[in-house]
């Protein structure tokens, strides 16, 4: 295997898979941190954002919006178009 040329499309695919892993870890930390960091106190001391408990708003509503924006930006700017067919190769 060493020194052999691997399909350049696979390098792109591997990088994008790693981005996926990175995104899910970030997503989880954000979700967990706000939910149990803010939501762990007694409900009497909760604050509210748009009527929703603050922990929920930041963890689930804002967290979802941030993930949607992140995915959009990352896909638009860092994901590379490749051909899936054998003769095609990388035409970026």
């Amino acid at each position: 295997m060493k020194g052999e040329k691997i399909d350049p499309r696979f390098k792109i695919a591997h990088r994008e898979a790693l981005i996926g892993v990175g995104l899910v870890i970030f997503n989880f930390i954000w979700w967990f941190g706000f939910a149990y960091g803010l939501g762990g106190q007694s409900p009497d001391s909760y604050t509210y954002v748009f009527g929703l408990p603050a922990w929920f708003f930041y963890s689930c509503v804002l967290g979802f919006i941030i993930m949607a924006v992140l995915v959009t930006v990352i896909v638009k700017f860092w994901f590379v178009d490749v051909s899936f067919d054998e003769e095609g190769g990388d035409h970026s």
Partner: protein
Amino acid sequence: MNWAVIIPLFVFLVVIFGIGFWASKFVRSSDSFLSEYFLGGRELGGFILAMTMIATYGSASSFIGGPGVAYTQGFGWVLLSMSQVATGYFVLMILGKKFAIMARRYNAVTLIDFLKGRYNNSKWVVLISALSIIIFLFSAMAAQWVGGARLIESLTGISYLGALFIFAVSVLIYVIIGGFRAVALTDTVQGVVMFLGTLILLIAVIIAGGGITNIMDGLRAENPNLITPYGFDGNLSAAYVSSFWVLVGVGVVGLPQVTVRAMSYKNSQAMHRALIIGTIVVGFIMLNMHLIGVFARPILPGIEVGDKVMPLIALEVLPAWVAGIVLAAPMAAIMSTVDSLLLLVSSSVVKDVYLNYIEPKASNQKVKKLSITVTAILGILVFLMALDPPNLLIWLNLFAFGGLEAAFIWPVVLGLYWNRGNKHGALASMLIGILSYILFHNFYPSAFGMHTVVLPIVLSFFAFIAVSLLTKDANEAEGSNFENLERSI
């Protein structure tokens, strides 16, 4: 009978039929029947890809059951459901381009074709995976049919038998004649119905409840635990809720009905678009749908059966004909799940077992006849099972999703990204995944406070790695298949 509810449901069914007939044109004219019937000719665009993934995945359990549990548990369950946002991007990014390229190289039409190509035509890998797909997904499908029929029964007042019949006939016809293309297109319509249905209902619920602040006051007055992340009795632990990131988040990568979609798209632009649309739509549907369940509580307190929350709240806060449209959404969710399962089980029987081991040289005409016949027979079998579900089937359904995830996640993911992985590792991983799932479920459920699925996935990971490394020498020659392919360009 409530005609204002029935008419929109009926219109919805007619539209679905129309799509089935339209798609059947492609099945008739295609020169590659198998690829068209089971994979839509690998022509899916981004929007349809995103919608079919979400719709297949968002089944009866999440659509009817989810809001019901959220009604009981409060915000803790909405938090849990939001772990599914990850499926919107994770599955397509992980399988992504490599899976699409390899699937084309192996000329794979099913997940098992891919495994067969990757693991050197290993007969045992093919047979065990085909068997687990057929057994587990058949049971899952029957359970969904029961759900679909009960829903029609509760909405329209038609008897269970009649409801089951309507449901079965509508799904069977469009799947049998239209194949994967019909399934994906109807999924898209169903996904749009789900998206709009939950949005309309959420807005109506908030208005009926006098605004979010008012609803929150009602929840806090009834039981302050409802607005914490810990469930109504404080028993939803952080470990348990987090473990759903495995079951309904990242583990979904291993579900055959999801992976097959990752080989159906036309090109990488379609995949990119599906990533963005999928993330937004799945998060939106999950958030809205579960919030509806929680917000319904102060408006309609005291509903005993969770599954009735969604229909009852819709009828309470919406005009009847709008409720009919909105309630087409859960029906859409169930139909779009069973249609994919039906086609998948049928493809396992025809493509993975029959064509591989019984009659490899069957003519195109024969394959066509066989595929349609098998799909129809399976559908009729499910119908008969759903009439009076046997206990074994209910028992098997419990393992369907977690068991399949534990079986397939590593043979697929490590098969793609780890060259050393071999067929012995894959076999060990599948067997340990399924067996340990069944054992844990029966003898040590929710180990360490997490969902049962977590440990079997960990065990099957180590089984794959250990066995692949141990059998390295014996497999060197065979393993070169994959590496040669990698090098060949």
